[in-house]
């Protein structure tokens, strides 16, 4: 196969790979015994998860009081973590659905991992609305509109929390199906390559009897397109609905119409940052430099500049509107955000989310793996603070100064957050080890770019 480097388009896969190379490169890690570094990583994740499970046990056994919440600040880390994780999930859906519709082929080497991240992030996110309930054992099913024997009791369709229930369950279901659908041909590939009987059985079960016939492919692509169509509005709606938790309330700092677009932009912003964090590691550990190239990084960094700037503008608009509205409590809430006792949270947010992504305007920074990695983490720290700032600094000083209070996290606030980290990384490591981290089938289609001659 002769190598011609296109002058029109950047090749998406470098390193003169053949179709067979692709299968080999990606399946190799599934087929090999786990590496030492993987074992260390999963041990760490499991340890974190274990600690988190202990904290969760105490939270459920003793009561929500083990957290640092109080009569004034009724939500803090719980809902902060919830919104943060949901936001992270958004990148996966955006990459797999919207970019699919827009025929952005560069997404093909990253969508698998991004979608897996979405699934795990949504599970982590859903943990918090569940465990933040005082009576989880009842809330678990009382929030669902199930026919019941309690008389005429029904859920309250006015409540944004109920909308959340629908939004999150829909989102999780669609994402899971979409992700799994994409995995089927690849499971079949692994099945076909498998030499060990258990592996053959295992992957043949997972591949749902995929044969690779034209009909299969036809169905596969049709369903993928339909699901992409279904998932696309979710990218916008889920975080919009999450933002309604705040936007529809009466609390100064929450009661803001700008929240839906601002939350969606923030979600994509943080999601891309998380995808970058994960992929930079995966690419290195699994030697996938030819599949996940600097070009990918750069494109994602551009998304980060765009969404980061939108978020920045939203912050400033919010401040302006608070002043311009002439509502005293509102203006106080925003001044207090920036200069009150939680100023450090606000400035962490501003620095991490507005200032730091602007560095990506410089090409060397945008194309440097190290700086991308560092900035991707900074962005996620910033986005966590954004939610903390919105939730805690708005609540802690609302209308009546007599109730103003501070929030201080406890070990269990931290521990329950670590629980989700433990779960997320455990799940992602298992995924990376046992599932193909790149969509083999799709990547093969872009091995040669349009303008490339074979």
């Amino acid at each position, binding site marked *: 196969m002769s190598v011609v480097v296109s002058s029109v388009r950047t090749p998406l896969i470098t390193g003169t790979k053949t179709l067979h190379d692709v299968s080999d490169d990606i399946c190799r890690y599934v087929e090999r015994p786990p590496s030492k570094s993987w074992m260390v990583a999963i041990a760490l994740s499991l340890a974190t998860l274990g600690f988190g499970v202990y904290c969760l046990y105490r939270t459920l056994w*003793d*009561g*929500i*009081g083990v957290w*640092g*919440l*109080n*009569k*004034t600040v*009724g*939500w803090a880390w719980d809902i902060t973590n919830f919104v943060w994780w949901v936001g992270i999930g958004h990148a996966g859906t955006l990459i797999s659905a919207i970019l699919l519709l827009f025929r952005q082929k560069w997404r093909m080497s990253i969508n698998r991992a991004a979608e897996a991240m979405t699934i795990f992030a949504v599970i982590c996110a859903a943990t918090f*609305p569940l465990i*933040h*309930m*005082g*009576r*989880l054992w*009842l*809330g678990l099913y*009382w*929030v669902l509109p199930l026919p019941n024997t*309690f008389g005429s*009791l*029904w*859920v*309250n369709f*006015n*409540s*944004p*929390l*109920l909308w959340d*229930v629908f939004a999150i369950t829909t989102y999780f279901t669609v994402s899971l199906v979409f992700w799994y659908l994409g995995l089927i041909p690849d499971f079949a590939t692994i099945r076909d390559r498998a030499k060990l009987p258990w592996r053959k059985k295992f992957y043949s079960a997972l591949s749902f009897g995929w044969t690779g016939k034209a009909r299969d492919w036809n169905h596969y692509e049709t369903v993928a397109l339909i699901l992409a169509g279904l998932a696309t509005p979710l990218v916008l709606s889920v975080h919009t609905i999450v933002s309604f*938790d705040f936007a*529809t*309330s*009466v*609390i100064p700092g929450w009661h803001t119409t700008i929240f839906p677009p601002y939350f969606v932009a923030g979600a994509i912003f943080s999601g891309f940052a998380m995808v970058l964090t994960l992929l930079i590691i995966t690419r290195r550990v699994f030697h996938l430099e030819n599949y996940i190239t600097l070009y990918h990084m750069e494109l994602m960094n551009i998304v980060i500049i765009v969404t980061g700037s939108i978020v920045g503008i939203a912050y400033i608009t919010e401040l302006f509107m608070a002043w311009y509205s002439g*509502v*005293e*409590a509102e203006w*106080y809430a925003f*001044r207090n955000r920036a*200069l*009150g006792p939680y100023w450090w949270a606000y400035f962490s947010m501003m620095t991490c989310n507005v200032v730091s992504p602007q560095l990506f305007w410089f090409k060397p920074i945008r194309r440097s793996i190290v700086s991308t990695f560092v900035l991707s983490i900074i962005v996620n720290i910033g986005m966590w603070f954004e939610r903390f700032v919105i939730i805690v600094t708005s*609540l802690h*000083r*609302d*209308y*009546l*100064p*007599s*109730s*103003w*209070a501070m929030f201080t996290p406890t070990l269990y606030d931290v521990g329950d957050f670590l629980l989700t980290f433990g779960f997320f990384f455990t799940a992602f490591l298992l995924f990376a080890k046992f599932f193909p981290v790149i969509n083999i089938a799709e990547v093969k289609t872009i091995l040669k770019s349009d303008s490339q001659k074979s």
Partner: protein
Amino acid sequence: MKEGKKVYWQGLEQLNQDPEFLKYADKEFPEYLPVKEQKNGQPEDSNVDLGTDRRDFLKLMGFSVAAASLAACEAPVRKAIPYLNKPTDVDPGVANYYASTYSQDGDYCSVLVKTREGRPIFIKGNKMSDVTQGSINSRVIASVLDLYNKDRLTGPKTKGQDSDWKTVDAEINQKISSITNSGGKIALVSKSVTSPSTLNLISEIQEQYPGVEHIQYDVNSNYGIRKGNEMSFGVGFVPAYDFSKAKTIVSINADFLGSWVSPIEYSRQYAQGRKVGKSKKKMSRHFQLESLFTMTGASADYRSKIRPSEEGDVVKALYNMLAAKTGGASVSGGDGSYNYLDQAADELLRSKGKSLVVCGSNDPNVQTLVNGINYMLENYGQTIDPSKGNTSRQGDDRRMVDFANGLSSGEYKGVVFLNCNPVYDHPLGGKIKEGIKKALLSISTAMVSDETAVEVQYNCPSHHFLESWNDSMPRKGSYSLAQPTINPLFNTRQAEESLLRFAGRDDSYYDYVRNYWKENVYNAETAEKSFDLFWDRCLHDGVHEVETPSEEGFDMVPVLISESMGTAASGISAEGQGMELVIYESHNIGSGEMANNPWLQETPDPISKVCWDNYISISVPDAKEQGINQDDLLTLTASGKSVTLPALIQPGQTAGVLGVAYGYGRTNSGKVGDGIGANVYPMAGSDGYVNYSITKGVSLAKATGTRKLAQTQTHHTYMGRDFVIQETTLNEYKKDAWAGRSFPKISTYDGKTAPKNISLWKGHKYPNHHWGMVVDLNSCTGCSACIVSCNSENNIPVVGRDEVINRREMHWLRVDRYYSSDSDHWQGGEVPSDNPEVVFQPMMCQQCNNAPCETVCPVAATTHSTEGLNQMAYNRCIGTRYCANNCPYKVRRFNWFKYHDNRQFPDNLGMNNDLGKMVLNPDVTVRSRGVMEKCTFCVQRVQEGKLTAKKEGRKVKDGEITTACAEACPTEALVFGDMNDPKSRISEVLSSENKERAFHALEAIRVAPNVSYLTKVRNKEKSNQA
């Protein structure tokens, strides 16, 4: 018989070998079984199978499964004892009320006790009393919990060992006779006894045993006033004051709304002069010159800061000013100049005969001068009624000191502590503690094993007042009765009954009181014809008033008045050196007698909003100068004693003055009260007059470490938010009834409009009732009786100090206290003024018509009633806390933990042991962990009132239903009622105030609350004093 086998017959049938018997002899149940018999109606001996057939089997199985599952579903009923014969007055589910009397530690209150199924569960003021007029305070309300205190002594003890009454009485009688026979003295020590029967009994005992001395003392003594009056009038007494008649009130360090003489009574009177309305656009003017920041000072129009050492000089200065203007002789001294004193003098003169000057000093010379001032102002017979002497504090400080010395010198061979605890609460407690050991006989009648009771030989625990018969005469001519509302819970015996036994008498104290009333109170000419009828009425009403001749006891001698002034003035010699210390009475804890009451401990101080601790309050400039921060531990040394307590920085406190509350630092009060704070009684001066102002030799040093104070409010100003607090001055208000009001406008396409004109909501229809409340910011004194009343009515858990620090107290009702600030800068406004004005704002669920909490609950656990109440279905709540976050008033409370029956919350006495749980209101659910709760406008009372009306086939009458907070309010600042009833009091208030002072908190967000506030009006020239 050896070889014979014993045979037992089942009956004659077997003996006779009856064929009928033999037929069934081999069956286990020879009788007919109904199952078989009913089967097909066929006879027994037919050839049908006699076993239970399938249908019967199913029937039986069905029945037993149903029975078993029913038994399993039912919660086990424990300790339910049915009435064999129903007591006449007890209907399960229906409350009974009994009039009774609370008299303890100088507090007198005529009360109504609510009992349910024979258990007293709630105490409210008795409106029939002329003295208290239905007013009450937090301690009286909370006293019901002390009845069910598991730390109470359950029977007599001898030297710490359980004993029985017979043995104890025999030993005591024997010792008394051996002491009195040898001419030894026995001291009978008590707090002020207001009961005429008890006093009569004691004097009878004294006749019987001449060696018995009765010594009365008070923690918060009025001895100085009594002595002052003795100097002025020749007779020692504490007069009845009437603050309602006073147009100008000048108080010099007298916290008459909190702790001075009879605050329960004065609060109600004071409020009458402070209320304004459409038809009454005037109010009393109140000047307060004080060292610490008291609740009374917070209500004052003009407040001036003085040092305790200046107290005498202030009185002299005022005396001289008035004397100069009325042509009287001046006294020496009074050279200092004090803020607002000139103005006060002018106004006092202008309202001669309608003014009142009071002083908190316990120095008789100062009180003599105060008498002179009131005499010049012609207040006697007007605002001061000498004929109605107040008996609630008649302790004799000097005799108590003599007693302490006598006891330690072995002069007293015997000592009886009658419901008092001087080892703890007297400055010479240490001396008394040592002295007790020297006495041959020592007895305590305390209900718990307190600091004094652990030192004595015999513990003869008395009943709680709710288990006792007694009477009281809080002021001359006003009698009241106390009756038991429950059988004694333990093997205790009322102290007076013990006295009867000690005197060798067998009659019951009930008979004694009854006889006393028959002989001394009953007057056949003016009252009922038969004593029984009279007694029944008194018992029902709880009170009885008799006419008193006005000149009884003494003449008003002008000569004596003018003569005594000079000597009094020269007798005042308080000079301050360095820091000065004021030991004061904490508003909720009082003397410390009720320190073991968790409701009181968790009720925050009205001013500092601190609970569960005492502390050294220090002024802002002092703290700045000495680099002291809030919560820093400080070591305070005074009178040779030291305590280490955390610092509280108190705006408005005089620089150079420190304050510490007594009533803390108890070691033997019980599980809750022990070890809270430090005891400062030993620091008080006791050279004949108990003196809580230490003006010399006070030093303050920083200790290492901090102790975080539990404050329920940590932000102290209202940040100039006129949507929270609206206030004005009287002059402005007279000119314009809308003064101080703010009217928010919302910009719309059609221009600016009031928030009520635009709404997302369609509104609710209230066809029947529409409950609402009006809170008069002008008459609220911040006393917090409402909080304790709400705790008692609504089974509110006590969470303890740590959880209050975590800002998780469960009070459904709080009283927000806001200081004024000199700055309107958005951050500078957080700093209170140097001498701040104060507004108290009781804040409970506002029962919004457009409730933000209702829309956000995902499971509809909080909904709107057809009567305007915002309801909470605890059973449905899943605890997302969204409602609490979205509550703009932050009045919702979450059950972070399981508060009842949880060892983690040992202070929750009313919910963690079987005895304590008897105090719970059976009409109100005890909430479980993980659910939200909040004020319901006492929906159980609303429901009860409606049902009563329905049963009687009539409409609910106004005043019939009221909330616990409104009922407890001593100043009647809270008015609850049906806004749909045009004749109800609330409708009347609202219709006259709607266009005047009534406003909704946070009107702009249009949540449309059912609670309205009335603007705070200050009677001062201009707001924000310099």
